[in-house]
């Protein structure tokens, strides 16, 4: 339609779309899906790292981890707000998460098994997330773009903290170094999968790129991540668990192996190591907290009635 064409022209000229502007239903739906998934990922993402707050091995590390998990909750909050500008409520989104209808990043369905995972998650998972998120700062939808600018600033801080946990372990005892290597072994492939399947298998990519919601292909971002991370692993003295990994003089990039996509699709389907535990934890928090939310509502109602009566 005419409106669609005008909309596309705006996008092409780099004009930001704002909440009250007209937009195609597909654009709105795509954004709601993507932003709410991203928000849910932040919420569920509290759990694997929250798992180590009470066991952080120094007061300083405990404080840093706590601040990080707090930031994640904060990101969830910005992102829910950004999604709400598109006409969906936080309660609706919460319901979709708790019922299992909405997705969140698959990476959070892996368990955090040792303290080194706090390093690996920060370094690799936040590293991959940033790779995905940096281009989203230029997303065509204004509220999302602005939320991402805040998010990215904090995420890159988190990634440096994660790397620092790894550095300390790698400079530590033999046991600590082994713990770091073990964490890299377990988190490497799931991190590569965070960019999604190869573009040829990706469902939404093409339209999203045309709409300025997506700026790079999954494979481009994955390559960039590998090229950035491998030298860091070398600096740490760790071995990336990929026998096919090799510097390619011609392309100026690393060649690397194919992740096990059957595992990826199993996790997406709900059969990852922690899918059930993650949803159970969020549902328990929500159900156990019903009295709290109802109590605050009851109090507010009383206050309103009193004001009305005066």
């Amino acid at each position, binding site marked *: 339609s005419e409106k669609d064409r005008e909309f596309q022209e705006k996008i092409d000229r780099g004009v930001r779309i704002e909440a009250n502007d007209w937009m195609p239903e597909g654009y709105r739906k795509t954004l709601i899906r993507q932003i709410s998934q991203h928000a849910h990922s932040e919420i569920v993402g509290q759990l694997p790292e929250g798992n180590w*707050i009470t*066991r952080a091995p120094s007061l300083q*590390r405990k*404080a840093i981890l706590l601040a990080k998990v707090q930031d994640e909750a904060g990101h969830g909050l910005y992102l829910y707000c950004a999604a709400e500008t598109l006409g969906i409520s936080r309660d609706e989104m919460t319901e979709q998460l708790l019922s299992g209808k909405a997705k969140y990043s698959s990476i959070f369905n892996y368990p955090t098994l040792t303290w080194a995972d706090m390093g690996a998650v920060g370094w690799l998972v936040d590293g991959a997330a940033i790779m995905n998120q940096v281009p989203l700062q230029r997303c065509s939808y204004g509220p999302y773009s602005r939320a991402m600018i805040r998010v990215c600033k904090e995420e890159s801080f988190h990634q440096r903290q994660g790397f620092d946990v790894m550095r300390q372990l790698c400079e530590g005892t033999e046991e600590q170094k082994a713990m770091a290597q073990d964490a890299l072994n377990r988190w490497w492939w799931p991190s590569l999968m965070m960019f999604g399947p190869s573009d040829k298998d990706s469902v939404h990519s093409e339209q999203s790129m045309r709409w300025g919601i997506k700026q790079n292909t999954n494979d481009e971002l994955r390559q960039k991540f590998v090229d950035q991370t491998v030298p860091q692993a070398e600096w740490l003295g760790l071995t990336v668990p990929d026998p096919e990994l090799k510097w390619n003089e011609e392309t100026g990039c690393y060649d690397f192996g194919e992740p096990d996509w059957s595992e990826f699709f199993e996790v997406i389907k709900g059969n990852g190591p922690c899918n059930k535990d993650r949803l159970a934890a969020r549902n328990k928090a929500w159900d156990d907290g019903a009295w709290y939310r109802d109590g605050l509502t009851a*109090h507010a109602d009383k206050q309103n009635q009193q004001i009305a009566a005066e």
Partner: protein
Amino acid sequence: MDPIVTFCLRMGDTTLILGQQTAAWCGHAPVLEEDIAFANMGLDLIGQTQLWYEIAAEAEGKGRTPDDLAFFRTERQFLNAQLVERPNTDFAHALMRQYLFDAWHLPMQEALCDSSHEAIRDLAQKSVKEVRYHIDRSRDLIVRLGDGSDESRAKMQGALDALWPYAGDLMATDEVEETLAGQGVLPGLDRVRRAFDAETAATLSRATLTIPENGHARTGGRTGIHTETMGYILAEMQSVPRTFPDARW
């Protein structure tokens, strides 16, 4: 032990154990805003712990670090008030525990702002703003949830009944506090108790909650006598450093 060391451990252990318990709610609270608030309070409490332990370690002069104090002492050496080790039974308990702690912590930090001990005075002046923010928040929630639905009132009353007997342990004093009071390190201790009583009487009444009659029966934390929850808290908190005693983190 130097009374300064004992006092700073009593304070730091109390903020550490409460911070630990508070932080355990991250990702499990009833709304996202509470996830954030509990993380934030936990952060402040851990930060205050580091400051108390620095003063304690310095006064002790044995070369122990704040991390040594947190991760390499045993239960009987921890001097926190029993209140803060009470379990995260539900979010009502967590809120009430925090409120009773805040109702003591604010006047305590205000009193310490006039301490004759420079480091303690600096610490108090630095953290009193955080503490004021905490009680504003927890007081508000106690009132809203006490005077909320029937269920929320029952939950908050249950938490008050369970925790009130432990609140006195925050204000328990012995020759350590008396010595420090005499030196002006700990000025106005009598005012702290009065402020606690006035704060709780006013707020709990607004919250339509009833203060239990059996008083502040439980004490002992300040001399290392704890409740049976404490051992589990320490086992979890200290597990990594205890497993790798030679490591630095």
